[in-house]
């Protein structure tokens, strides 16, 4: 599709556009990195880049009581939510795509409807329920509500991906005497693994990003996740926003996710757009 014959002014125009896009996407990241590396004395210098570098804010954040706990909570909760929803989503997506049963379209439509659901609508009832059930400020207390958006996403991405898998192998295995379940485990699972992996990354990012549930359903280091910890970060003084410590914490949580996303960018783009456009 690349038209190699394009004239150089056109080339130049598109390259300039590409550079602009990169500036657009990266500017805030460089900015928060710069904030985290500025010396405390230079905070108000209004410069985009730091004049001299200092790691003091990273040391402060790591020594902080809340942040490492929040990081651990975030990693654990997002991973478990991913594992759970991708497992359930894989089973459902397989059935929707491969098996003929009445109501399969309703499962897909229901998942889509749930994905559009405003989370604030269920925060109140959950708050009340969790207090009575003892789930308030616990890991399961966040993992369960995360299903409202992670499970639809998983079902959606996975069923889009499963549609592309060659049917015949599945059928051939069944003709050879495998039960539908054996066909699922032996044939489809290895073929589906890349799709499952993509769904897992997307689901993880969504769970990792949540702030509303974390803010409403946790109160201490027991289950408070990174977005809530950063938003409620007070630092040593209650009256001054610890801008640079927040910036350092932000860099710490942003860099690993960004590395994963960049490493698997092609799959992520395919996963993000598959369900929505091709369907």
């Amino acid at each position, binding site marked *: 599709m690349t038209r190699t014959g394009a004239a150089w002014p056109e080339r130049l125009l598109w390259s300039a556009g*590409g550079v602009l896009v990169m500036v657009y996407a990266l500017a805030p990241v460089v900015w928060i990195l710069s904030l985290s590396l500025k010396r405390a004395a230079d905070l108000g210098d209004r410069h985009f880049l730091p004049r001299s570098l200092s790691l003091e804010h990273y040391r402060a954040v790591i020594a902080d009581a809340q942040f490492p706990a929040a990081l651990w909570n975030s990693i654990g909760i997002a991973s478990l939510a991913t594992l759970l929803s991708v497992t359930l989503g894989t089973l459902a997506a397989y059935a929707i795509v491969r098996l003929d049963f009445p109501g399969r379209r309703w499962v897909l439509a229901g*998942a889509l409807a749930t994905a559009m659901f405003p*989370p604030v609508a269920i925060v109140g009832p959950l708050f009340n329920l969790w207090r009575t059930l003892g789930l308030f400020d616990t890991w399961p207390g966040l993992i369960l509500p995360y299903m409202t958006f992670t499970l639809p996403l998983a079902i959606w991405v996975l069923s889009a991906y499963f549609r592309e898998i060659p049917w015949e192998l599945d059928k051939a295995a069944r003709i050879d005497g495998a039960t539908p379940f054996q066909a699922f485990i032996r044939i489809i699972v290895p073929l589906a693994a890349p799709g499952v992996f993509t769904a897992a990354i997307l689901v993880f990012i969504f769970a990792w990003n949540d702030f509303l549930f974390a803010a409403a359903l946790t109160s201490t280091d027991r289950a408070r996740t990174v977005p809530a910890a950063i938003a409620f970060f007070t630092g040593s003084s209650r009256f001054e926003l610890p801008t640079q410590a927040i910036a350092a914490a932000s860099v710490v949580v942003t860099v690993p996710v960004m590395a994963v996303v960049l490493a698997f960018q092609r799959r992520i783009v395919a996963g993000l757009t598959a369900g929505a456009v091709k369907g």
Partner: protein
Amino acid sequence: MNASRRSERRLGWLLCAPAVAALLLVTAYPILYAGWLSLFRYDLRFPGERAFIGLENYVSILSSEVWWRALGNTLIITVGSVAVELLLGFALALLMHRTLVARRAVRATLLVPYAIITVVAALAWKFAFDPVTGFVNGLLGLDTAWLTQRWSAFFVIIFTEIWKTTPFMALLLLAGLTLVPHDVLQAARVDGAGPWRRLFGITLPLMKSTFMVALLFRSLDAFRIFDTVYVQTRGAQDTGTVSILGYNTLITRLNLGLGSAVAVLIFLCVVLIAVFIVRGFGAPLFARRQRP
């Protein structure tokens, strides 16, 4: 019906059952429970005063200015951000589609805003627009305290939303763009249609359904905006949205009855917007979701 069909059917239901049960448990049940709670006077600070009051909560919300202001603010943010995102997203999609140099790198960096935690993005822009720590005023030669006035605060909030979600829009539209058959465009070109003519006569009409899906997704997503507003203004300067109002009533003021009524109203708004977009614009959402 033969035995193998019956067993396929049973397996289908069996495999879907855990996911469906989980979805019902975590969304259907709480929203019904919210509907139930919304009929009570129920304030956790005064639990003894709990009483059934019918629709009184709804009456007091719908007759209060706070709700309508929050709804207005939410619509300002939704319309403002989605409109710009559609245009900017389409421009980015065209760029990614046509770009010849470093195509992979451009596409990869566009995922960066998507991968950043919303709270972090909101803080990054908040600090950037801050008159003391920020660089924006220095860049523009201004001395504005952006988040202390209503419209400039809206600007920062909408700007942050646009920055964060345009890449998603661009990727969706790009996927639609690649489905436009190349030979049709080529034929039009041979027939003498200029680039604008090809864009408005062929590309855009063929992408209608992609645009509708993108519009629906992003409108509903923008309508429930919470993180950015909470981090940047906490709803001050009259920038609070319906989600902020719901959160404050439920979690900050612990008024479960009134807050649940707000929650139900937000839910109804989302349903209304979805119906409006699907019916009004004819977004072919379910019709196309069949096997190719």
